């Protein structure tokens, strides 16, 4: 996997714009602020980044979304298991503390949040950068954070020892909940998109 410094910078701009749009959609969906507290686009060495993820045995609720179009990308949105209950109450406009167990409703909230985030990222790439991109149906999966993360990057890891990773943390206002969003772009297809815009290395 090779990406020039210029293209990495452009990808950083693209991802920030897209994630900003997605965070506003998330805020509107939950009717509370979803503040981006951390966002970074960088080249990660797979062994090192998975080693870091594997240090924690946090149990997470997660949703993975693939995309179809002229750029390849995968998304993982995950939150601590107890956080699903908070998000379910927010989504359904129920009093805080109403949802106490993980059930079909909570699973479907994760599914829909994954859908909204992924779609708004696509919307940004399409309207700002002329990409052709729509999300696939989300896949909800709860597991250890490191396992979900490895699953997300598995395709890239099979082909290379490095990948480009966009790593974002949101904080949901009026709660102590932190959510994590990872995007793994297919570099070759994004290089073509960036070249098509007219930015050359």
């Amino acid at each position, binding site marked *: 996997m090779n990406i020039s410094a210029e293209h990495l910078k452009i990808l950083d701009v693209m991802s920030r714009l897209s994630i900003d749009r997605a965070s506003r959609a998330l805020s509107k969906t939950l009717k509370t602020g979803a503040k981006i507290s951390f966002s970074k686009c960088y080249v990660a060495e797979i062994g090192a980044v998975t080693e870091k993820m594997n240090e924690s045995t946090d149990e997470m609720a997660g949703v993975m979304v693939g995309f179809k179009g002229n750029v390849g990308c995968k998304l993982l949105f995950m939150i601590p298991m107890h956080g699903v209950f908070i998000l379910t109450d927010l989504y359904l406009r129920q009093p805080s503390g109403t949802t106490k167990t993980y059930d079909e409703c909570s699973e479907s909230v994760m599914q829909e949040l994954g859908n909204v985030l992924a779609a708004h990222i696509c919307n940004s790439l399409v309207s700002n950068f002329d990409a052709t991109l729509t999300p696939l149906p989300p896949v909800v999966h709860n597991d250890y954070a490191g396992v979900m993360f*490895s699953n997300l990057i598995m395709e890239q890891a099979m082909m290379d020892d490095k990948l480009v990773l966009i790593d974002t943390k949101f904080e949901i206002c009026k709660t102590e909940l932190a959510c994590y969003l990872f995007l793994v772009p297919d570099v070759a297809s994004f290089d073509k998109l960036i070249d098509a815009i007219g930015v050359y290395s």
Partner: protein
Amino acid sequence: MANLPQNIITVGVGELKITRSPGVLKTLLGSCIGIVLHDPLNKIGGLLHIMLPKRNSEDAKITKYADTGLPYIVSQMVSNAGASRSALYAKIFGGAKMFETNGKMMNIGEANEFEVRRILKEAGIRITASKTGGTKGYNIIFDTETGKVTCRIFGEPEEVY
């Protein structure tokens, strides 16, 4: 899990780590297989986290693959760490079926396990314990002092192997 030791060394995807007692090795596994190798005489242990059965290109990292990673960890344990080759035994974990973003299940776990077992058999290294399959992740912690592996599959109780 309760009371995790301070001397934990974490292993990432396609990586291997070797340590001696009182070192503890840990990793998380989905479709990957974690192979624990232990020399009980010298209390030296290694953990290899492979993701694919066979190496598919010459410049690919050898520790990602069962066919190149296993011989490599054995040679590292024996030549560099001073482990006794004849005393080595193995335990294997992981190989779950994981979802892909297209909603289908990835079945590379089974192929990984098959290749790992084949290579260990060829190398004359006995597998004394294994826990593989399912659709959820594995959290494994390997204690080089005792050779025990504490394994907790997501959503299930902890078991010791």
